[in-house]
């Protein structure tokens, strides 16, 4: 006769509840805390609308990978994958044989496939016209990378290794795909914390930037109205992505995957003969990759690597990086304002932190607060898209040094 008690006992022993409570002191508590963190992130994404398209996926990936015995993600497989002494070093075959669903998703992060495809979508959605009509805005995009290197230095001072500090610093570039691209190559064990910090701070740009903007610019300069820039021809817009790829990839070959995909997406948009491809890259492909990327990144947030003092340090360094990048852009804006005889509104400098188009919108809003008839949006889009290229160059430099 069937022993019902034994069946029920087996069911209980095979359940995640048992795994959490019987191993509470040996890691069960970490699973529990991570489940709570995942729910908090879901709340922030759904209710507070913090970058919901990414944060909801990240939070759910975190939730899934912290359900004991689910077998969706195996941290130990990836530890072996990264260990040069292991027989499974860089063995995707081992991942495919024994990995779970989220391990398979994560291969796309590890190979940099998803960040590059996201960049292709970003390129297809970006109009580089404001940058082409005012090329000097590239200087503001460069100035606003200050936070990347200050946070990198801060990371070293706080005891991180060079690769870890470089991955933390890139949060200051305010560019999610770039941060994921660099971290997955240099410090994959910090990927979850860095991705969450980067996307959370990007969502908080309207709160983080305005006080710094008011502090570093004076009321008179904030009222400056900028003259309309020239109209850029279609031919220039078609030549631009080709030219950028050639120059930037020759200068820093490590940036070729990111810049190459960004500019390919932009070329699809501008040629006028690849509308279908442009549409697919901007919508269907971008949405599919966002789902895979966000859940895979969330899956890396396992308790043993996430619940450490390092995560808190990353959160602090991340906001420092954002703040200093904003300050760097504004200082650049102030210098341009002085050099041009008050023809440039320094507020557009803060848009150099990338985070397209949120940072440019913040510049516009602050400009209109100082002078309601001021429209800085198109002027701020120049530094904004320059910041995307600038953060990719910064990532390429850090990768060439620590990769």
């Amino acid at each position: 006769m069937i022993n019902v008690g034994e069946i029920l006992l087996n069911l209980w022993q095979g359940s995640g509840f048992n795994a959490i409570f019987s191993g509470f002191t040996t890691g069960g508590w970490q699973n529990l805390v991570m489940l709570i963190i995942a729910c908090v992130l879901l709340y922030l994404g759904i209710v507070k609308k913090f970058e919901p398209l990414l944060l909801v996926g990240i939070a759910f990936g975190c939730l899934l990978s912290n359900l004991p015995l689910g077998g969706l993600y195996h941290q130990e497989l990836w530890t072996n994958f990264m260990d040069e002494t292991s027989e499974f070093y860089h063995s995707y075959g081992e991942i495919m044989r024994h990995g779970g669903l989220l391990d398979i998703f994560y291969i796309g992060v590890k190979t940099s496939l998803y960040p590059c495809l996201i960049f292709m979508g970003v390129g297809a959605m970006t109009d580089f016209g404001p940058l082409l009509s005012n090329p000097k805005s590239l200087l503001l995009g460069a100035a606003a990378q200050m936070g990347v290197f200050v946070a990198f230095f801060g990371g070293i001072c706080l005891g991180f290794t060079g690769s870890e500090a470089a991955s933390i610093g890139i949060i200051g570039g305010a560019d999610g795909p770039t941060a994921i691209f660099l971290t997955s190559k240099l410090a994959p064990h910090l990927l979850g914390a860095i991705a969450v910090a980067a996307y959370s701070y990007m969502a908080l740009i309207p709160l983080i930037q305005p006080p710094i903007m008011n502090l570093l610019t004076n009321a008179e300069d904030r009222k400056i109205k900028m003259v309309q820039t020239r109209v850029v021809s279609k031919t220039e817009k078609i030549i631009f992505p080709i030219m950028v790829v050639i120059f930037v990839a020759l200068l820093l070959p490590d940036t070729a995957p990111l810049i190459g995909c960004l500019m390919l997406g932009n070329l699809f948009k501008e040629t006028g003969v690849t509308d279908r491809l442009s549409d697919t890259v901007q919508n269907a492909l971008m949405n599919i990759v966002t789902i895979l990327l966000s859940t895979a990144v969330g899956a890396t947030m396992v308790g043993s690597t996430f619940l450490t003092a390092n995560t808190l340090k990353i959160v602090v360094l991340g906001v420092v990086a954002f703040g200093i990048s904003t300050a760097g852009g504004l200082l650049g804006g102030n210098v341009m304002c002085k050099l041009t005889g008050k023809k440039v509104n320094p507020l557009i400098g803060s848009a150099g932190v990338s985070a397209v188009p949120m940072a440019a919108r913040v510049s516009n809003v602050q400009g209109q607060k100082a002078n309601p008839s001021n429209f800085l949006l198109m002027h701020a889009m120049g530094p904004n898209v320059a910041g995307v290229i600038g953060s990719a160059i910064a990532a390429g430099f850090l990768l060439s040094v620590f990769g």
Partner: protein
Amino acid sequence: MMLASPLDGIGVLDAAIVAVLGYAVVFFGLILLMIVIMVMGNIFIAKDKKREALNAAAKATIASVPVATPAASTAPAATAPGSAGKLKLYDVEPKTAAMLMAIVADKMGKPLNELRFISIKEVK
């Protein structure tokens, strides 16, 4: 775990050098790009100016040709090729009308000079 790079155990002074160098490389890369864009922009601006000068010269040549028939001045002005007569606007600014026509042409995927707009009226 093995260090991924020989520079992973970098000291504070070396980190400061890497940070300054990295910032300088970003500036160098973007300044290089800026120069290239400026050169490209100047080439296109010069091209546009040349084209405008040619158009202006052609217009001046046409204007300098004497009118052969005096009676023509009393006749209604001929419409230019591609023109589609007058457009009546009711409570609509010319700028808004121009924008609306451009949007309609874009949505229909037809050149503006192949469409005829008879009137535009604001529906209140």
